[in-house]
């Protein structure tokens, strides 16, 4: 990354656009120089002339020559991202923030809880975990979406990753808010996958990523199940401009989401008045 100006993005070419759901696309980007990050860190995507917005990569951190971002169409910049086509130029600035503390997960039973587009950072984390899968006693991945059609990474979640379950201490718990006739998993919001977890909660950490309301209810549920506040990791989302702790838009209390986060333990932010947007 160009160190001379903190706002200088790296040029990237859009290689591929994958339509995950009607509202969510995954971009495969080829940066002009290799782009390394750790799972949980985020970066800004610039659509030239439109604007910049922060996203956590959804691809494996060990792949530096190509980086993927899964983006839901919500506003101005994400709207423009959805218009991108292979060959288009975008800017990439980062990585920023603190990664998931994988060293603290070692020897633990890891619970991943993702909802909707919140699966994007968890996919990156999942790949990072799988690289050293035997470091963790167990991995349970709970996923939720509105309907089966709204699931991201359908090939991976319903087939490739499922096949790993025979080889590794890995389990999936899938749910949708409203099921269709061919849905063979659970029905209900993602918290219903947190019932009777086959985990030793005393040695487990939970990583939650999804819409604020989902994270709030998942946290309440995890606390009920016996998780300690410092073992619940939440991905916080805020309006953000600089990413470097200057513009102060992303503060949760005195914590910068861009520098101290974007992942926080529940214990760190629970007393901040504006933690749950």
């Amino acid at each position: 990354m160009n160190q001379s100006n903190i706002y200088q993005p790296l040029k990237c070419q859009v290689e591929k656009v994958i339509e995950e759901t009607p509202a969510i696309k995954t971009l495969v980007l080829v940066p002009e120089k290799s782009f390394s990050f750790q799972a949980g860190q985020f970066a800004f995507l610039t659509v030239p002339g439109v604007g910049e917005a922060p996203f956590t990569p959804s691809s494996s951190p060990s792949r530096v020559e190509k980086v993927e971002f899964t983006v839901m169409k919500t506003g101005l910049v994400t709207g423009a991202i959805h218009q991108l086509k292979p060959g288009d130029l975008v800017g990439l600035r980062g990585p920023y923030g603190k990664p998931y503390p994988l060293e603290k997960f070692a020897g633990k039973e890891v619970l991943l809880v993702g909802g909707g587009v919140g699966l994007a950072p968890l996919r990156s984390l999942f790949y990072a975990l799988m690289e050293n899968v035997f470091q963790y006693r167990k991995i349970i991945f709970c996923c939720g979406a509105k309907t089966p059609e709204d699931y991201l990474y359908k090939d991976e979640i319903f087939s490739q990753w499922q096949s790993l379950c025979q080889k590794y201490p890995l389990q999936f718990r899938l749910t949708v808010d409203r099921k269709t006739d061919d849905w063979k998993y659970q029905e209900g919001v993602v918290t219903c996958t947190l019932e009777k977890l086959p985990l030793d909660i005393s040695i487990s950490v939970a990583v939650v990523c999804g819409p604020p309301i989902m994270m709030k209810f998942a946290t309440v549920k995890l606390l009920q199940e016996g998780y300690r506040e410092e073992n619940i990791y939440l991905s916080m989302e805020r309006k953000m401009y600089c990413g470097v702790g200057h513009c102060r838009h992303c503060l949760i209390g005195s914590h910068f989401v861009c520098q101290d986060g974007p992942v926080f333990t529940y214990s760190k932010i629970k007393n901040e008045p504006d933690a749950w947007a």
Partner: protein
Amino acid sequence: MAAKKYVLIRKDWNNFLKEKILQNRLIAPVFSGERLHYQILTPESIDQAVPGVVRPEQPLKFFFFPFQEEVLPASFVSPQIIMGVTACDLAGLRVLDAVFGQGDFKDPNYLRRREMSLVISSDCSQPLDVCFCQLVGLHPFPQQGYDLNLTVLDQLLLLEVGTDKGENFLKDARGLREATEEELALRERLRQNTQERIRQINRKFNLPEKIPEDISSRLSAQEWNQVWQSCVQCGSCTNSCPSCVCFFLEDITEKDYFRKRRTWDSCLFPGYARMASGVSPRPHLHERFRNRYACKYTYMVKNFNLVGCTGCGRCIQGCAGKIDKRKVLSKIIALKSGDVLYEPV
């Protein structure tokens, strides 16, 4: 080693500045009506500079962190001398230094401006009714952060050297001599007078010696709802604050040459923290109002070990809703002195 202190007559100083102005832009307080404004001076207008009265209307940040500028590519920066900077504005500059000039990410425009600026501060001698620097742990005379500090002793100027840069600046000044004990004693008396004046101005607010850092967590949301009074969320307080640093960035890229522009923002605006989803962490005005107080007295202390309020009173002076921060603070202290946790509504 004690800081060097010189004395020279005002006319010699102005003549000296006339030479310096050729290589630097000179900014100093100038009366415009009854109020002081920082203005760019020319050799002809140099005599209008009035340092040593009170802080001007605009905050000093204008000259280091302008309202709007391009940050990518970095802006062109020219050397500047800023004279008549008061202690409150120097405190604001310390916050700006902590935000933009320290840590892993340094702002290129800010650092360049800081390097290319000479800061000549001055004692404050005529505090305004809105001034309350002593309540945030400051004094009406600079103690740190200046290259040179200037005290007006009638037709004489007493210059105290703060940095090597300041000392070097004085290298070719004519008519300098060391300050006498009497002159220093006079400076001390003038300083004490100003301190006493600020104490008098603020006595009626019944505030503690220093505004407590936990002030923002003392009230419940309902109570904050009572104290925000008549805020019309115009952003005047944040724009005129010497230590408010919030900004937004816009992408103004053409073709494949990335360009970004930065503009001041205000945490009181409803859209300030609103995300693309339309959700804001502080949708109600009383939450944003509280956040500003929390940022000044709590968060900046946690972030940089600096109080984010300098007591300059610009936020009181410019408030369209006529909110006197000191009244709000004293109301908070009167409402509750215990340490309760803020509970959102």
